């Protein structure tokens, strides 16, 4: 089959916003305000090193170690920093514990504040207008859409994140997990369970 070179006479033109971003990058680089290599490193960090596995580690430790859990709930920021999870924007991290009486759920009604060091970049739905508006107004309905049905005795508390305070939900440890080690427990902790729109997996 002959290859038709005229299909692609020139490099594929990126979408308009991508060109605007390139323009900004060029200006900022020329002015010495940013380093293109630092950009690559930031992207690599958020794509491969920072993600819900960090939060899952914190949750598993809290399930296993009552002293760790106490310290975490008292002031999470230094406790997670000790594990190497720093807030790049200097934000405070607050851990809210689920109990049989209270289920916690996190939203950012302003924009999309999120505990990056523990969960990485938020999923699309967290940033959507629909979630941001409805999480506060009708949390039980939103939870039901995520497949989470709580008993009538469990109250739902919604926490609104800000640039300064980011919340992480400490989910209830599933039953049947006695004797599991930290790695096995961490594997049960889903991203959504730490936002409060899901529950941890149950062991197979």
């Amino acid at each position, binding site marked *: 089959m002959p290859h038709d070179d005229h299909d692609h006479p020139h490099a594929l033109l990126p979408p308009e916003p991508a*060109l605007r971003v390139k323009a900004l990058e060029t200006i900022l680089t020329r002015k010495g305000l940013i380093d293109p290599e630092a950009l690559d490193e930031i992207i690599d960090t958020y794509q491969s090193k920072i993600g819900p596995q960090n939060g899952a580690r914190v949750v598993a430790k809290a399930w296993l170690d009552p002293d760790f859990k106490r310290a975490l709930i008292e002031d999470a920021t230094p406790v997670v920093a000790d594990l190497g999870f720093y807030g790049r924007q200097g934000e405070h991290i607050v851990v809210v514990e689920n109990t049989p009486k209270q289920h916690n759920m996190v939203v950012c009604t302003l924009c999309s504040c999120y505990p990056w060091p523990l969960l990485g970049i938020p999923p699309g739905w967290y940033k959507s207008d629909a979630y941001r508006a409805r999480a506060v107004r009708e949390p039980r309905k939103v939870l039901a859409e995520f497949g989470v049905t709580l008993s009538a005795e469990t109250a739902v508390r919604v926490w609104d994140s800000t640039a300064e305070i980011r919340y992480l939900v400490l989910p209830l440890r599933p039953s049947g997990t006695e004797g599991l080690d930290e790695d096995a427990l961490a594997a049960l902790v889903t991203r959504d369970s730490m936002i409060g729109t899901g529950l941890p997996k149950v062991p197979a």
Partner: protein
Amino acid sequence: MTNCPNLSAPEPVFSEPWHAQVFAVTVALNEAGRLDWPDWASMFSRTLKQHGLERELDGGDDYFNAWLETLENLLADQGTAASDEISNLQSAWEEAYLTTPHGQPVHLRQSG
């Protein structure tokens, strides 16, 4: 096992390369002390609110469009990057893409 939905399939962190780029530029400026994060968040939330008046934002492309617009406004306000400077370089990049043969790395001409 085939009827078991693959719930653990990883979602891409950024759905478009430029989402990652604009995010990284913003984080880099913050780390260089050029952008205060609470200020950023309040400017960004204002843009989102404005955009959301016209239609419901889905949290994908439109989210990063709002992000980019906020960053451009902020840098223009700071005097760091004027809007005509941005549009000139945007045209220069477009020109570079359109005149670079397919498969070759795209570079801005020095005069750009």
